[in-house]
């Protein structure tokens, strides 16, 4: 393909365009990360919590406090601290958590899969039920289906997840014994699954430990359903309003006039159009779930990302907080890219040059 490299040829121009788009994109992503780190870093340094106290405790001598402060580099000017931190991050070193004594990325590799399993099952439930319910509510607008979906959505919106989680545990775990309790897996299986990916379902399947996999699933299903319910509430409301908007469009009237079945109009025409904004809603809900939900993780003793970041923040364990922030930032950026890509698939207009 010699023509590709010669300037002025159509393909070369297109590649050049793509390269410039790509480099502009990379610059934006880098700047986003830098901004994210800078804001988190400086907020972390001005909050009135002393990380040294978290390490040495109340009884430490003044000398030890001074020494630890020096070891952590906290006596340097803020800008220097930030530059040193960025330098290390660029070398792939996110530092060590002062609370867990582990490298931050090792901690996150442990906490994130726990949250990932929960969030993924959660969003599957949320979107898988939320979208059809929303469509249904829009079609039967004002009917009893619409009303019940609204009530369900309102309840999901207004009930504290902490309370709901506890009630769900009392009923489905303690009383009915349908699901596993708090924690990711029963103690009996704790050491029967070798941790490879950190995703217990996957690891158990890889090891052929089907009983352990079933047990892990039974622990996952309740918190995931709760998170699913909360995103369902949001997704179904949004679906309903997008669908109402689409169903009042002229193309729907035209389609009806042409005698196309109502079912095709709803699912093939209207929903397809509503899908584009809906994708953003689902992706954002998913991103929120992936950040980790502190309250859900607390009630269900789930060692996920939300608890990790919150606990670190409360102890001014800034390496851990910054590492966590980078992960959460990456999730948002990654999901945005993914939805951009899906837009192109779903909406031909975005594909036009």
């Amino acid at each position, binding site marked *: 393909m010699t023509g590709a490299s010669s300037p002025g040829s159509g393909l070369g121009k297109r590649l050049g365009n793509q390269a410039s788009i790509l480099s502009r994109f990379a610059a934006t992503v880098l700047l986003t990360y830098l901004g994210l780190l800078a804001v988190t870093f400086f907020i972390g340094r001005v909050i009135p919590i*002393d990380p040294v106290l978290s*390490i040495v405790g109340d009884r430490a001598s003044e000398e030890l406090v001074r020494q630890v402060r020096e070891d952590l580099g906290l006596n340097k000017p803020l800008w220097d601290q930030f530059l040193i931190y960025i330098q290390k991050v660029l070398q792939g070193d996110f530092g060590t958590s002062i609370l867990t004594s582990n490298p931050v990325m090792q901690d996150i590799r442990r906490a994130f899969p726990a949250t990932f399993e929960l969030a993924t099952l959660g969003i599957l439930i949320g979107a898988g039920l939320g979208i059809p319910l929303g469509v249904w509510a829009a079609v039967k607008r004002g009917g009893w289906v619409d009303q019940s979906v609204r009530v369900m959505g309102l309840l999901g919106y207004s009930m504290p997840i902490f309370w709901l989680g506890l009630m769900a545990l009392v009923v489905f775990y303690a009383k009915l014994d349908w699901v596993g309790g708090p924690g990711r897996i029963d103690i009996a299986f704790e050491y029967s699954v070798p941790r490879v990916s950190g995703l217990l379902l996957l690891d158990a399947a890889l090891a052929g430990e089907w009983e352990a996999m079933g047990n892990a699933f039974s622990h996952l299903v309740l918190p995931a359903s709760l998170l699913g319910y909360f995103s369902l509430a949001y997704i179904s409301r949004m679906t309903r309003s997008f669908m109402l908007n689409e169903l009042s469009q002229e193309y729907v009237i035209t389609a009806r006039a042409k005698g196309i079945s109502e079912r095709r109009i709803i699912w093939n025409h209207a929903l397809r159009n509503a899908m584009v904004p809906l994708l953003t809603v689902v992706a954002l809900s998913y991103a929120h779930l992936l950040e980790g939900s502190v309250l859900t993780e607390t009630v269900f*003793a789930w060692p996920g990302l939300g608890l990790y970041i919150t606990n670190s923040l409360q102890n001014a364990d800034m390496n851990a907080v910054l590492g966590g922030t980078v992960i959460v930032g990456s999730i948002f950026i990654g999901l945005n890219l993914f939805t951009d890509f899906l837009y192109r698939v779903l909406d031909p207009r975005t594909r036009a040059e």
Partner: protein
Amino acid sequence: MRILQRPSLRLSLVCALSLAMLATMAPAQAATPKDTLVVVTAMDDIVTLDPAESFEISAGEIMGNAYDRLVRYDVADPSKLLPDVAKSWTVSADGKTITFEIKDGLKFASGNPLTAEDVAFSLQRAVILGKTPAFILTQFGLNKANVAEKVRASGKTVVFEIDKSYAPTLVLNCLTANVASIVDKKLLMSKEQNGDMGYAWLKTNYAGSGPMKIREWRANEIVTLEKNDSYWGAKSKVNRVIYRHVKEAATQRLLLEKGDADIARNLTPQDLDAVASNKDIKRTSTSKGYVIYLSLNQKHPALSKPEVREAMKYLLDYSAIGQTLIKNIGTIHQNFLPVGLLGASTDNPYKLDVERAKQLLAKAGYPNGFKVTIDMRTVQPYQGITESFQQTAKRAGIEIEIIPGDGKQTLAKYRARTHDIYIGQWGADYWDPHTNADTFARNPNNADDAKDKPLAWRNSWDIPEMTKKSDTAMFERDAAKRRVMYQDIQADFRKTSPFIVVHQINEVAAFRSNLEELKLGPTSDATYMYKVNKR
């Protein structure tokens, strides 16, 4: 030591209500493996597994089960000392040299032999690393430069030399602390990086010889202990102890009631009442070496008046606090030495007496009261006690403004002496009265740049006389005389000090009734899981 965590009142109330609604439902039963003890507890305080650095409550218990030391105190009678890796010991006539003979044939879990050399190394290492708990050893005149000479192995004995003739029980009591745990020299030196004596490695690993070995610590998730088959003494009755981090008390209760946990450690007073009627669950409690107190900064003009200090002590509704806020989890106690320590006093002369307080305030020149702030961390029972104090103090005209904050925020302010009133807790660092006398009743230098900053210093309470008395008690070798000395100091302290000691903490654990021999120790490192029998 780090502060015990209690969930906030609102959350507890919500949980208690929710659970009460469904209390009539009897849960279906699950069971934990028969050879495994499952403990649910809030253990996000653990920051290291190195006994030379570890000073947190949850970690203390792990160290107590996994590491040996020269001597231990007897949990049944804490005034008695039991030999651990030491077979016997002799104290020289001047009290400045203690010689320990080490037992024969001891082994670390790694298989390495445990010798006098390891014992000397362990104590030297703790002093040289100089982490937070090192003061327990360095207070006897040991430092980085002299420790190799003062603490040395010679054949089967270890010689421990100190700078002054302290009461021998004080020195021995200090050697029961975690910081004096025996570590495996050969193993640690093989993991050494940049001359750190294995410090970086031991933070997340294990090098001990105790009844249990530490298999794994996954921060904020799990700690697993396993039976150490090469332990010299009575072997652990269970093969495994798994501590699971469960922060929420209501969740702990569900797991316990269902049988997925054997022991729950952080139930709220309400939860404890609720499980009392369950025949499958028992409770055990013990008075811990922790006291909760309010303290008055002597830099505040009003609070520095002796009459005001005393008046404040009459403005707390002790009986209401005892019956409601700290029910099951504390006992009213107005002295700085917790019950269980030599010389502890159980005199609690103060009760709510607004009239008496008013008289004292008038005498001090504040007949209409004054305004003052209190720094409080927003957890129970601090919140409840502070709010109750605010109400009762108002009746004498004192306006208390509460400044709520995170524990580390309020502590930073306290350490800088910029508070008016502070509410906090203090726990014994080792099982000897000097631990608390050292901080409540000693203040060698009240200047801002003082080297030692005990609690008396933090409240700018300048007490040359009492400091002298506390120092004398530290050297008294006759236990009976020493006891009287501490009782005298406390009598003076109760009347004149700017500390309003409110209560002593009770630790309560709820456990499945098929467990036997579960006993909580007065300090966290004396709660021995390896002694628990599971039927």
